[in-house]
């Protein structure tokens, strides 16, 4: 089971990185989203996969009987998903505004803040 999750996380990372090295900012944002999901899946997997054993305390006991699933990684992922959702929503609006102001979604066209012209000033 772990190996399947590991491969899926790896594929998500690889796809995300591939999309991010493309020149289109739309693909970059998709890449970021995949990278975030890859990280979430990674946390889920390294937090140990325990199927079918929710961390409930049975009647008459004072602690859950091991082995139980660790709820903390899932809480972490939940938080990370919410944060990722907010940030990606912002990023989508941002690329729309960038497209409107720059008139292109090509990152190679977005170099004015990095360039110095021959006369030493700003383009």
């Amino acid at each position, binding site marked *: 089971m772990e190996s399947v999750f590991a491969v899926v996380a790896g594929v998500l990372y690889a796809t995300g990185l591939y999309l991010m090295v493309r020149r289109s900012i739309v693909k970059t944002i998709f890449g970021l989203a995949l990278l975030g999901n890859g990280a979430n899946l990674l946390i889920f997997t390294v937090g140990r996969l325990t199927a079918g054993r929710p961390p409930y305390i049975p009647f008459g006991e004072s602690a859950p009987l091991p082995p139980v699933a660790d709820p903390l990684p899932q809480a972490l992922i939940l938080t*990370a998903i919410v944060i990722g959702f907010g940030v990606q929503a912002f990023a989508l609006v941002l690329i729309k*505004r960038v497209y409107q102001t720059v008139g292109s979604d090509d990152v190679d066209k977005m170099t004015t803040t990095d360039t110095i012209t021959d006369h*030493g000033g700003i383009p």
Partner: protein
Amino acid sequence: MNHLLFLPLLIPLATAVSCLALWHRHDLQRMVSLAGASALLLAGGTLLTAVRHRGVLSVQAGNWTAPFGITLVADLFSAVMVCVTGVMGLAVAIYALADTAPEDERQGYHPLMQILLLGVCGSFLTGDIFNLYVWFETMLIASFVLLAMGGKRANMEGAIKYVVLNLIASSLFLAAVGILYGVAGTLNMADLSRLLRDAEVSGPLPVIAILFFTAFGIKAAVFPLFFWLPAAYHTAPIAVTTIFSALLTKVGVYALIKIFTLIFFNETEAWQPYILAVAGLTMVVGVLGAIAQHEMRRLLSFHIISQIGYLIMGLGLLTRLSLAGTIYFMIHVIAAKSALFLATGMVLRLSGTTELKKLGGLYRTQPFVSALFLLPALALAGIPPLSGFWAKLALVWAGLETGRFIVVAAALLVSILTLFSMIKIWSEAFWKARPAVEETAPQSAPSLPGASFWLMAAPTGFLGLTTAVMGLYPEPFYALCLEAASQLLEPTAYIAAVLGGTP
């Protein structure tokens, strides 16, 4: 008494909420954020005094005992940083009274600035790595919006680079947190420190350390991960650039220092050379980038990077003196750099440009503004008796003591190059005669009415004077920094304060 730790979080939060409630009343928002920043400074000062007298303070939210609950903890280093955050918040709030565009205020400049301060204070005070991630994101999302606010082409281009690279850093950070949890089973920093000290943990710790170093390295803008910074910082309004330069990269450095002193303190010898190499390259590349620039804000943005190199150098040397030097350097560079940016903002308002080719003659027309620039410029370069001299002296001394001669040489060389590029600004913008204005670009004579002038000059002058005071009376500052460095190197008090038990 330990509930004091909540104040630096509650004050900016309450201020931000009040500003949101007063959305259409910009005059009231200004007053509220000024009051909030003053209260934050006060809280930071009280916290620093308390930590100084009573040792490391910690508080568990909702009384869930560590390592299960949400922990806030303040050692001297974090208390100093919270205090500095308060000073910077207030300085920028005063400056912004005179220098915030109405359209920025309409888009929520004041609440966003407070949320930024909230994220920064949270990062300094948290005792849990996952919460550190959350605070980082709080800080980042506010900074994203502040940076993109202008809506012009430069803002947008700067923002897209900043956002993308910082989100990559965040996902690396998140992955590192996840793997660390898988290895150690806890994310409480004190608990991690205790577990690793007793060597109860085995696993891919070097991998985790490198992931953390890369993630925080992007945020702190170290070589070769700094390219987002000079592309983005100079596009924002001066007040925003100042607070970014003062706090955001420093939070990255703070996190690096905390992680490497508390958690990855094993195999120190193995990673020290790499950190020192990164430090040296960051200094040199940053200052070389600055020399190539002909616009004041871009030039100063590159200097942020080169100064980060010095901070990382202190971490790489990892002695009591070098860490104290780093903390002293951090206070010094925040004050000096912010004063330079604020003075640049005054130049922009007075001359309508910050391009060195078009500037000139300011020393003749504005001798006071020239002095406001000159003082922190000399401090940044490390001219005695200003603060930069003592900061660099401690680092160089620590480097010589440990026999790391190459990085010491780099530090000294970069000092000279820093002085060179400061002289370049000085001679181009302040000394040389103002170039004849071209016919094609008629310049509207920019003016700065008296009240605005003093609102901008007061925080600039105060931060500049701070560098002078720190230089003339370094003793109490160094005593504080040495104490903070001892706490970093010997975290038994930190662990005891969080987990209980005798140190």
